[in-house]
Every structure is written in C-alpha cells, then in structure tokens.
C-alpha cells in the first residue's frame, strides 16, 4: 500500500492524516512535498497524524526528521500524533522519540501549539 495524505484545519493547526507506507521513493516524496506545500502557504503549525502508517523505513524516518527541521527553520512547529507500535518502536531505538513532540490525542495536540 502506497502512502496517502489528506490535510484539514483545526483551530489554526493543520492536521495531515497519513496512511500506508513512508518508504524510499513515492512515500517519502509525498510527505516531503506535502510539508513543503503547507509551509509555502504559511501553514506553520503542523501535526502529522501517523495513526494509519503501518510501515516506515530509514528513508521515511529521515523524511520525518527533514519535515521537523524544515518546519522549525521556518519558524513553525511540527508534531507527531497517534504513532503505531511499529513507528513508536523505531523512534525509540533511534532516540528520535526525544526529539519529536509526540501526542496521542488530537485535541491535546492542537491545544499544545503556542
């Protein structure tokens, strides 16, 4: 299953609902283009909802890091929501869990933006 994304606005925060696989190739490119497009339009409060992401490889992890740093460098914030066990485990062993702001409740995630 390739990656699919859809975005929606909740109280000034853009929620990006991701599903499928974030892997080298199409999945990583879709994520990169989505975040860049949001930033170019001034949407700098971003939540990546990864609840339906069932697989991610090292390239996908790299894209999450890139999305995080790109958003931060443009004065925005990017948070992760609803990690599956697989993605959660990967972020734990790569120590990235401490880098990302990870939420498991959408309302709390939206309220957490300054």
């Amino acid at each position: 299953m390739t990656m699919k994304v859809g975005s929606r606005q909740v109280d000034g925060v853009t929620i990006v609902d991701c599903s499928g696989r974030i892997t080298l190739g199409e999945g990583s490119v879709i994520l990169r283009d989505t975040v860049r497009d949001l930033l170019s339009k001034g949407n700098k409060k971003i939540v990546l909802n990864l609840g339906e992401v069932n697989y991610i490889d090292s390239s996908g992890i790299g894209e999450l890091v890139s999305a995080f740093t790109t958003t931060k460098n443009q004065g925005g914030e990017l948070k992760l929501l609803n990690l599956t066990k697989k993605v959660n485990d990967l972020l734990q062993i790569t120590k990235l869990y401490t880098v990302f702001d990870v939420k498991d409740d959408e309302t709390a995630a939206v309220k957490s933006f300054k």
Partner: protein
Amino acid sequence: MAMTEQRVSYTLDSSLETIDNAEEKATRIATELGFPEDEIMQISMAVREGAVNAVLHGNAYAPDKKVTLAFEHTANDLVITIRDQGKGMDLSRIPNPLAPENLLKTSGRGIFLMRSFMDVVEIRPSETGTELKLIKHVHGPTAGGKEASQ
C-alpha cells in the same frame, strides 16, 4: 533465480522495484520458516535496508550493475546475503546515528537498524562491491531443522 533445497538466490536490477521486491521475498521466506510476527518485520526491514544500500549507495542505480540476494536456511539460522557491484565502502566512516550531533541527520540509520534487528550483521567491502550478510537465529519450532523431523 537459482534454487537448491534450502537456498534460493536472485539476481536483481539496481532499481527501486528491487528494494520492494527484496523486502517482499524476505517477508514471505521468514513467514514460511515460521518466525514470529515481530521477527518477520525485523527481517524484512533489515533486508529492505540492505537492498537500499546496495541499490543506492553500492550500485548507484547503474543499469549495468546487479544486486544478488540469497536466502539460506540452515539448522539454526536464516542467512541472507546481499551483494552489490559498487566501489565498496569505508566502514570506519559509518557515523553513529545515536550521537547527539547526528540525531537530526536525515540519513545514516540503515546499518544501525540492521544491527538492531538481526543477530549478526557482517559487512565485507571490496573494490568490486560490498557483501552484506544478515543472520537471524531460529528460535521457534524450526530450530534444529524442521526437515530433519519429517
């Protein structure tokens, strides 16, 4: 494809399709050998990362260079070998992705993930390519050789 009773090997192009193909083969073989679900995921991800390195960093997508992928089931192990035809690699220059200065790098986690998921990871670079050997010990009912009990 060449195949013996407990060994199967494939010669694959240096393409993105090869990476997905390698992962799918690893998932199927690990499933057939009876590995538990979490270890199937680990094996398939390690093979995917190995295939990524072979296609991208080893062969650099060169159409005239091939990736060889082999699975061997011994009495106690699943042994996976991935060879590319690139220029080899300098093992001393592999960064530690957990170092604070590397945490926010967007690449460099593939070998780390392989080492996290497999029991043995051997990397043998040479001027004619790199050979990667991934070994997962068989802990379940297949340990000791399922064939021997038949």
